[in-house]
């Protein structure tokens, strides 16, 4: 089986420094790579975009970022939308929108369910991140995003589809919008940071008339009587139980620690709930 390109993106490592986003602009603005891509406009096109997702409420908050770009789908909607064979799938898995044949075909941009194909108004061209195919073909070992990323977000690997599937299983990798069946070649690690909720709280107790943080309290979160997550409070009495589905309804939480225990229910809607100061007695 032929080896094909894939990219694994670890959401937990991305801190929105934007150098991948800018390296792509550096590569394409003002540069014509015949057969691969026409020049990107000076502003307004983000072929690698960074999505932002903040979770929680002040003061228990986390901020997460996720690079999103052309998924180089094996069953790409843009290919189906294209006429004239303007979008081609290379043997190595990379999808190229032909900068000549695609002229005027706005439907190629509109077809992408990930919003990853930009429309170049001036050139009348749909354009997207080309997996730096022109550089890989020229002997580069990695993409520019991977080269410049200071926090190891990206890992491009050329493997057989079977090997990738094994990796997906082993590392719990996910793709965006799997329900569409587009078979993306961009895989995500720790995607729950973008898609799921946590519950957090600050556990305290009163000792000699003074409020103190409770370290080491055991926290159990249950749904319909089943454990769905556990945590232990830290020095500041804080805990976080992650990976709760959005809009998943009501949960029970139980906290036991020095000073006593408590239990209560909470709802998970769109936003990660912060249960506030929880006093053990």
């Amino acid at each position, binding site marked *: 089986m032929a080896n094909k390109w894939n990219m694994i993106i670890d959401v937990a490592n991305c*801190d*929105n*420094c*934007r*150098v991948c*986003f*800018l*390296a792509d*602009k*550096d*590569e394409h*603005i*003002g*540069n014509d790579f015949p057969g691969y891509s026409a020049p990107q406009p*000076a*502003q*307004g*096109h*983000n072929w690698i975009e*960074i999505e*932002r997702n*903040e979770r*929680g*409420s*002040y*003061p*228990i*908050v*986390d*901020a997460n970022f996720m690079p999103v770009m052309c998924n180089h789908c094996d069953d790409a909607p843009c290919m189906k939308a294209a006429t004239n064979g303007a979008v081609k799938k290379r043997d190595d898995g990379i999808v190229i929108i032909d900068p000549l044949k695609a002229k005027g075909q706005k439907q190629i941009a509109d077809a992408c369910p990930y919003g990853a194909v930009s429309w170049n108004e001036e050139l009348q061209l749909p354009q997207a991140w080309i997996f730096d195919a022109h550089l890989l073909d020229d002997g580069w070992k990695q993409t*520019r995003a991977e*080269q*410049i990323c*200071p*926090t190891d977000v990206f890992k491009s690997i050329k493997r057989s589809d079977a090997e990738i599937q094994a990796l997906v299983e082993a590392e719990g990798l996910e793709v965006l919008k799997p329900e569409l069946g587009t078979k993306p070649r961009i895989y995500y690690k720790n995607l729950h940071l973008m898609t799921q909720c946590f519950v957090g709280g600050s556990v*305290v107790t009163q000792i000699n008339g*003074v*409020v*103190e*943080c409770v*370290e080491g309290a055991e926290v159990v979160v249950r749904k319909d009587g089943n454990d769905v997550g556990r945590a232990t409070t*830290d*020095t*500041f*009495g*804080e805990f976080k139980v992650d990976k709760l589905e959005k809009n998943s309804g009501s949960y029970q939480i139980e906290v036991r620690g020095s000073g006593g225990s408590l239990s209560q229910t909470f709802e998970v809607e769109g936003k990660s709930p912060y249960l506030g100061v929880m006093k053990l007695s």
Partner: protein
Amino acid sequence: MKFSAILWGIPQAMRTVAAIYPEFSERLKEKNITAQFRVADKELGRWIKLNNGKISSGSGIHEKPDVSLIFKNEAIGASFLTPPFDQLERIDAAKNFKIGVEGPDDLAVWFMALLARLETITWKAGTDMGNGVMRYTNGTNGGPLFVYVKDGKIIRTTPIEFDDTDAQPWSIKARGKTFTPPRKTTLPAHGICQKSMVYSKERILYPMKRVDFDPNGNRNIQNRGKSEFERISWDEALDIVSNEIKRCKSVGPGAVAVANGSHHQWGNLGHYLSAFNRFWNLIGVTKLVHNPDSWEGWYWGAMHHWGNSLRLGASEPYGTVEDCLKEAEMIVFWSSDPDATYGFDGTRRRSWAKELGIKMVHIDPYMNHTAAHLGGKWISPKPSTDAAFAQALTYVWITEDTYDKEFVEKRTTGFSEWKAHVLGEDDGIPKTPEWQEAETGVPARDVRALAREWAKKKTYLGAGGWGSGVGGACRGPMGVQWARMMTILGAMQGMGSPGSNFGNLQFGTPLDFNFYFPGYAEGSMSGDLAYSANSANNYQRMPHIVTMSSVRQAIPRIYLPEAIMEGRAMGYLTDVASVQGQFFPFGYPSPGHVPVEMLYKYGSASFGTMVNSNRWVKMYQHDNLKFVVNQSVWNEGETKFADIILPACSVFERWDISEELNVGPAYVHHMYSMCNHRVINMQHKAIEPLGESKSDYDIFLALSEKLDMGAVYSEGGQTELDWCKRVFDSSDISKHISWKKFLKKGYFVVPPEPEASRAPTAYKWFYEGRKKDVPEPAPLPSEYVNNFGEGLQTPSGKYEFVPETLGRFDDPDRPPLNKYMPAYEDPNKEAELADYPLQLLSPHSRYPFHVMGDDEGSSLRDIREHRVLVDGHYYLVARVNQQDAIDRGVVDDDLIRLWNNRGSIVCAAQCTDRIRPGVVSVATASAEYRPMGEPGKSTDLGGCVNLLNPSKSITKKSHGIKPNSTLMEFEKWTGVDTWKPVEPAAEIKEGAA
């Protein structure tokens, strides 16, 4: 070789080179000239005549040469002209009149540069990558990079990835793991956006004149910032500028003032401390004295407790990366966001700390980038109140008996007075966690939990951006109190013991600190011994001619507008030689000097960086300012507030040489220890200057020639490339790699220090009561009260809880005992502030470098956390609390107006829970100034948040800014500007007192 034989050889060499190199033969055609070489003591010489590129030459003395090079005698002439050139000998000959030049200055410079080119034309730069692509190197404020060029155009820039021949990096073994940094450089956003800046639509490509400016008639000063510009020739521009310099000099000393930003494009030669200062020293100008920007609280406060004046009061950093990784159990990041502004080499090291399970705590009203990335406990005090929080920590340590008593007893003074104050024995107020809660909003329980954890665990205090000082809370109204508290915390937990120190892994990598390469603050070719660290190494290492301004007048930078508009300004010196140097006041005007009439602005976006910046706008339209030049690469907010605009080229269009993050001694010695590798690199001239732009050096050389100083300025026609070679020769790099190889490859990685001889850990010597053993030549020998190398730079030689030096001065805002004194803007105390319920933070951005990179054509503009595109304009982002936004009917990306009595701006809202309620954070990141109406008196759409910040000094008797708790309000933007400034009369008087 005999002198006459050498002279005979020169035209031969010129013919040979012209035959091989078309560039040289073209150059010969530039001027028709007869040049004479001769000796002074007899009739001996040779002339060379160039006529339409043809060379003729004859022995003897020409009757009418255009230019003559005169040597005192044959021996001096022979030595001067025989390679390899001895630079010291050449300088000696020039300084002591052993050689001389006759003839028009510009012709002489041209001819001498032509002679120098005979050698340099054979030099080759860059790596051929095939397919017509050349790979060069260059340097930015964000680090060095590779620059790929094809057909005279930059096609890409990348980090520098090391090859097999480059030095291997260091490793640190900690708790069973081995950590080694990747073998490449990192680049932040403002480094990798540079190609877009080079080709930005806002590049200034031609000299320009304001259409209604007539130097000999009506100057229409009131129209600066409003009128359009027209293209003029370089010759006309240089004539106008040089004539104005001469006119001002005839008015009297000090009539010309020069203003530069704190930073320039990266590079040693092109830096303002080099080419710029050299020229202005030769003119004699009123200088702006920069306040210790970014070090405010450390310089004016912390320094008194522990010295470190040559680090502007910040901590020594050596060895802390290794010690932290090996020993520390917790890092407290206090107003510390290194991931925002210092590139990403340190980010890697902090990821190792996370991998080792070192606990992280972040104290900042905004959950900053570093906090968001690393995770850990976020504590969010109200802006400026952190000193109360810190005092309460010491209360817990004192009452629970968990501070380092042996250290306090042996290495410090004044603790009993401090302890009594904390316990409330002197003022009746114990500084309890509950006491601080009312001030800071931080729950008392969190303070107790942190204090106990800190006492239990070996802790690194990462205070400020670098962990060892700088930025953040030190530059607020109570920044002095805060920075002083940071040192008190360090002292109470025995700084210098294993795992207990200052740092956040940003500073102090185990590099070679003995390998010399100059940093930009060493002044490079400036010859300036007074206002740079030139005399420390550079002046001996790279012989060059001293320059010195004879004008003694100076203006405190913050109060330049007051100096111009009101004719007076008062400040205190930034003097790093001693602790007490900062007590010296200085004022404008100076005795025997005259008021400033001309301002030469270098770089052009200070409306974004200078506090209460509407003052600056008004200054430009004031009658007292007769003439303004702006020399700049880009057309930015301030540029058009000028009469003449001179187009400088970018660093990619000229030669320079530098080392990543090396600024030299005098304020941040060994600053490159923020890097994982010492990378010294050529800054190749990768492309020709765009349009008619010129390098700063060439602009100053051209102006020099108008004043017959070109030969002096350029030391006899030296070009930037010649100077690069001289810098190379002056440094230790020349012992490791040949010039030609270095020039071609473009960079050199300095091998790291072998593990056995790494620099010791900061303050370990002090903790253990030994002589100072870290490799910094500081303090100055005269600053030790004991024997050389013994103790700290304080009157006692010990850490002083109640500093004696502050007792020798009388600043009411800096009493020796570091009392908690609320000094933030308070609506309860000042009626005119009652309409402004929110507090403003104005940190640096992580995307532009200050405002560099925020050009209207820059690719940074598409970053949603920097600017948001609304109706065709990119608005700067304001981070507002989610609840505050809801209360005002504002959602993400809405345009909002932020204002107070001083200023009004429009931003795009980023609604977030990452900021405590009641606080707004807007980065000082705007290079644009776009007033809706009258400049200085209307709302700015560019987003210059400093329009809102106060200009009062951080303490009564100092010179420093204090933004970071400015009161303001915001509302959804209506599109109609109704804002009117309330004249800050009292404030202006403050600066001009």
